[in-house]
């Protein structure tokens, strides 16, 4: 696929994504100041030396935003990877094995799902030490549940296909079937789900940090930046809005790109590997028909 085939929206989204990636990878070189250095008065207006102004303690806002992007995205990525590794594994096993393993996994998942994820996180993090690995672990474990649901239904769909039956009759082991038959066919949908999960974990993490239960100051992250600068709103300082805006921009960029990739995958030229699957399964963003079934909304924060 060459650049010529991209739509304007996709080009902008790709550029935006590159910008966020650059911030994540190159924060120490891109940021004009270290994140903790005081460069002026608190909530100073944008100037030559501090392009976005300063924050509540007089630190350069742009630098903190860039460093915050790095921390937020790295933590989100780590949590999403944990959620996926665990969720996909459990989901595939549940979907493929069935029987009591399936029942056990599903009932546990029902319980976890029965109250919103934010409340779980609040309860669990209220006493745990709020270190980075702990936050990553908690987010990953909570979100693994929803990944598990998707992976399980995918595995059940795919395992009714002829080629899985053949592999089973051939006497292949479970691990081989999972890895060689189910996984490649589930990949497209799983990637779309990964992008969506990433957005939700990002929202989740910044909500926690905003409430003071996520990443702890002085480490900058998006939710924490909004929290630190929220009092400035009363004086008309918009510093608290910037992290939310950055988050929303990134989410829209990811959404546009995933939609683009998926719509190309399902064009007649590129035949989906499993007939009918691409039509029947959840694709793209959070606002999809499939989300209507029972799990949709709590997602955003819940």
């Amino acid at each position, binding site marked *: 696929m060459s650049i010529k085939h991209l739509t304007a929206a996709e080009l902008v989204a790709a550029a935006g994504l590159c910008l966020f990636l650059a911030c994540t990878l190159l924060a120490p070189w891109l940021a004009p100041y270290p994140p903790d250095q005081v460069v002026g008065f608190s909530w100073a207006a944008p100037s030559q030396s501090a392009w976005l102004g300063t924050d509540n303690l007089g630190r350069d806002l742009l630098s903190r935003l860039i460093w915050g992007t790095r921390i937020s995205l790295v933590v989100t990525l780590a949590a999403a990877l944990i959620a996926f590794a665990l969720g996909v594994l459990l989901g595939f096993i549940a979907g493929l094995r069935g029987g009591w393993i399936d029942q056990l996994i599903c009932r546990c998942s*029902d*319980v976890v799902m*029965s*109250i*919103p994820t*934010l*409340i779980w996180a*609040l*309860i*669990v993090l*209220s*006493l*745990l*030490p709020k270190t980075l690995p702990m936050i990553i672990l908690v987010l990953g474990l909570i979100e693994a549940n929803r990944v598990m649901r998707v992976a399980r239904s995918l595995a059940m769909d795919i395992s009714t296909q002829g080629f899985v039956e053949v592999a089973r009759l051939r006497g292949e082991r479970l691990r081989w079937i999972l890895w060689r038959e189910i996984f490649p066919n589930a990949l497209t949908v799983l990637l779309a789900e990964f992008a969506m999960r990433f*957005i939700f974990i990002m*929202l989740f993490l*910044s*909500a926690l940090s*905003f*409430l*003071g*239960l996520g990443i702890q100051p002085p480490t900058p992250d998006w*939710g924490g930046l*909004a*929290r630190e600068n*929220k009092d400035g*709103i*009363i004086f*008309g300082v*918009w510093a*608290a*809005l910037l*992290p*939310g*805006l950055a*988050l*929303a921009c990134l*989410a*829209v960029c990811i*959404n546009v790109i995933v939609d683009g990739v998926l719509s190309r995958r399902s064009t007649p030229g590129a035949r989906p590997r499993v007939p009918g699957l691409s039509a029947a399964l959840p694709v793209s*963003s*959070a*606002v*999809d*028909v499939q*989300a*209507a*079934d*029972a799990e*949709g*909304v*709590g997602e*955003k*924060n*819940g």
Partner: protein
Amino acid sequence: MVSAWIDAARRPLPRLIGTRLALSLLMLLVVSMLIFAGIQLLPGDAASAILGQSATPAARQQLELRLGLDQPALSRYLSWLGGMLRGDFGVSFSSGQPIAAALAYRLNNTLFLAGCTALIAVPLALLIGLWSALHRGSVLDRGLNALTRAAVSLPEFFSGYLLILVFAIWLGWLPSSAAVFGEMPLSTRLYFIALPCFTLILAVLGHMANMTRAALLAIQQESYVETARLKGLSPWCVLRCHVLPNAWPPIINVIMLNLAYLIVGVVIVENVFVYPGLGQYMIDGISKRDIPVIQACGLVLAAVYIALNLLADLLSILANPRLRHVD
């Protein structure tokens, strides 16, 4: 319709409702165990969480005695659960006051905020969804789609502060904090919660409208709708007699889920607007390490969430006879 009646006679509805109710209660019981276990058994024990790492052993021991931490976990759980059932939520560590009264007041506030939001957002969402399903592909339809996508990824601490900045600071029309108190007359109260209400509407409206649209569109592609259209029924009649009855269950589901989200997920909005609701109470409890408050809030929020999900289940069963013999 006839088959539905027969079916209802075969599997009496009360029994079905009873099963769902029992399941929900069971779920609540398990959740209560998890909440209790989560707080009592996790590493980082309560006493050192309250007193800090540098507490003297004597102070710790005294605190543990006061909290009843010398008892075994099971008996503590049972007495906690028993107290909950009698409406006794224990005593707050930080204020020394009984939790039940504060909890009732906070829950009331949260329900009021969520109720006001629902009263505006639900009819509006249904209308927008209906309209854009009927005018598929129009500018407004596509606009709605784009807006919904943007709104889903907009964190509330962004939209909330943006609204404060615009309406409270720049324009000066509305108050920036929603600090309501007991004897406020209704009109003042509504004036104070206008902005949080607006923020919440932004959060749920797009999703509900889009789901309504999707449900309607999915039904409109069914062959029986085409038949109805081909036999010359008016568009309104097709919608009313053939599309809507089948679209209700998914729509009800989405609405109830959004309501559940409203009541439970308002934590952030309450925090932004300093609204004395349940979510704010819980966050306060967490920052003061007030374990009984955290437990009580967690359990009440879980109960509300489970109850709304149960209601969604029951309403969609009632709205769609076919769902009655699914399981």
